[in-house]
């Protein structure tokens, strides 16, 4: 088995990992980035819609174009991207175990950034293991990356931005979205996405849920019913809707196994997807030298993930002494301010407060440890 050494090792070549790699490598660090997929970019290459926000967050540019820009910047930066490379463990707080194709090797790093992303939540119901029931993210990969239509008649469960955007993209690809079913009393995602769907004639059924998927060998339909204010099924409201695909867009949660294995302390923040790693304002966890960025720190969206990646990249460069401290602080503050802009308004304020709680949890933990 070969053993490599590097200054910065990054797990995940998605929005956060690529930005972290660009910042650290541009500051002069030797950077290795690992991703288990055969293409870099994480979720960006599935995003065929234009991003929101301001110009500094690349608003108005489609997600896959942002992905291309990042890959271009990564190449110029000199960061070394390893694809088809599974990081299966972190040992001694500083060494990764990697399987790249048929090769097994270890990488000892001065700084590690975990940018492993998130995974989709599951919703169990009768028949939910029938072929045809899938995550909305999976359906989006099929349509936008592999150009395969998962089905012709779709029911989407969940009206957050993922449910709304994927519904629209399935329609663009030729599917008929029969309904969007939302258990909450109101639509979860942006009005601009919901309006597009409504104008196309797709009913968004709030206070409704899928009780059952039925079919012999695959999904042939769903039983959809209304919920009362206590989330109980309204008797007699059940209706059968014929479909061949049921997509679940019921949120995501952080892919935090490696952070657990490394020994990072966690805190529980439901809005960010449950147990998330505590980190300081530079995204360093309770394990010195291990940083986190992107959805693994708490599920948000791609623009925030990119800024967290930027901050983590600059933070490790500062910690390695590659940037003078005054300049480094100014750059980091700028990234933090850009994150505050993203975490504002009706959809962002809750996340801003949640993220502040996460840093507070870190500070409390360190104070307790220091007192011991």
């Amino acid at each position, binding site marked *: 088995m070969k053993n490599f050494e590097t200054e910065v090792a990054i797990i995940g070549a998605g929005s956060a990992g690529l930005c972290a790699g660009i910042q650290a490598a541009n500051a002069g660090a030797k950077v290795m980035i690992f991703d288990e997929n055969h293409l870099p970019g994480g979720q960006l290459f599935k995003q065929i819609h234009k991003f929101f926000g301001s110009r500094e967050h690349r608003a108005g540019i489609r997600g896959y174009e942002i992905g291309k820009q990042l890959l271009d910047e990564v190449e110029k930066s000199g960061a070394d991207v390893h694809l088809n490379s599974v990081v299966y463990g972190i040992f001694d707080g500083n060494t990764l175990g990697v*399987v790249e194709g048929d090769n097994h090797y270890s990488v000892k790093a001065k700084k590690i950034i975990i940018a492993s992303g998130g995974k989709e939540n599951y919703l*169990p119901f009768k028949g*939910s293991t029938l072929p045809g029931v899938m995550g909305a993210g999976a359906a989006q990969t099929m349509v936008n990356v592999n150009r395969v239509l998962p089905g012709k008649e779709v029911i989407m469960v969940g009206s957050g931005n993922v449910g709304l955007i994927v519904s629209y993209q399935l329609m663009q690809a030729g599917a008929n979205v029969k309904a969007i079913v939302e258990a909450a009393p109101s639509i979860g995602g942006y009005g601009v996405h919901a309006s597009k769907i409504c104008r196309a004639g797709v009913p968004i059924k709030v206070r409704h849920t899928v009780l059952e998927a039925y079919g012999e060998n695959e999904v042939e339909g769903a039983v959809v019913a209304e919920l009362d204010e206590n989330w109980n099924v309204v008797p007699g409201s059940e209706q059968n809707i014929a479909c061949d695909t049921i997509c679940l867009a019921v949120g995501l949660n952080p892919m935090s196994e490696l952070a657990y294995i490394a020994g990072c302390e966690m805190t*529980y923040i*439901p809005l960010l997807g449950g147990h998330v790693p505590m980190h300081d304002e530079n995204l360093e966890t309770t394990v010195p030298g291990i940083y986190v960025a992107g959805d693994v720190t708490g599920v948000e969206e791609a623009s925030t993930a990119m800024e967290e990646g930027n901050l983590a990249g600059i933070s490790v460069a500062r910690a390695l002494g590659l940037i003078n401290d005054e300049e480094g602080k100014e750059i980091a503050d700028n990234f933090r301010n850009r994150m505050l802009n993203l975490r504002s308004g009706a959809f962002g304020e809750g996340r801003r407060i949640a993220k502040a709680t996460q840093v507070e949890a870190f500070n409390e933990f360190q104070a307790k440890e220091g007192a011991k």
Partner: protein
Amino acid sequence: MDRNVIICRCQEVTYGEILDAIADGATTVDGVKKRTRAGMGLCQGKTCQRRVQQIIASQTGQKPEDVLPATYRVPVRPIRMGVIGGNKDE
């Protein structure tokens, strides 16, 4: 929820089996896992674990933050033992 609804897809563990494990004394995800194999399949709990956590919290009255994930161990991804052992054909 119907007792026959499958919670762990990989190992085909039902809601009823998880309730039985809790009735048998399981108070943690690891306890449910050891009794039922929920979370021991190919995805290693990536699909069902959060549901198992929620079921344990609601059945035992524990706070959601106190029901921790199962103990994670290396390797966190399925990898072929032959790659690590040196002979990839075995």
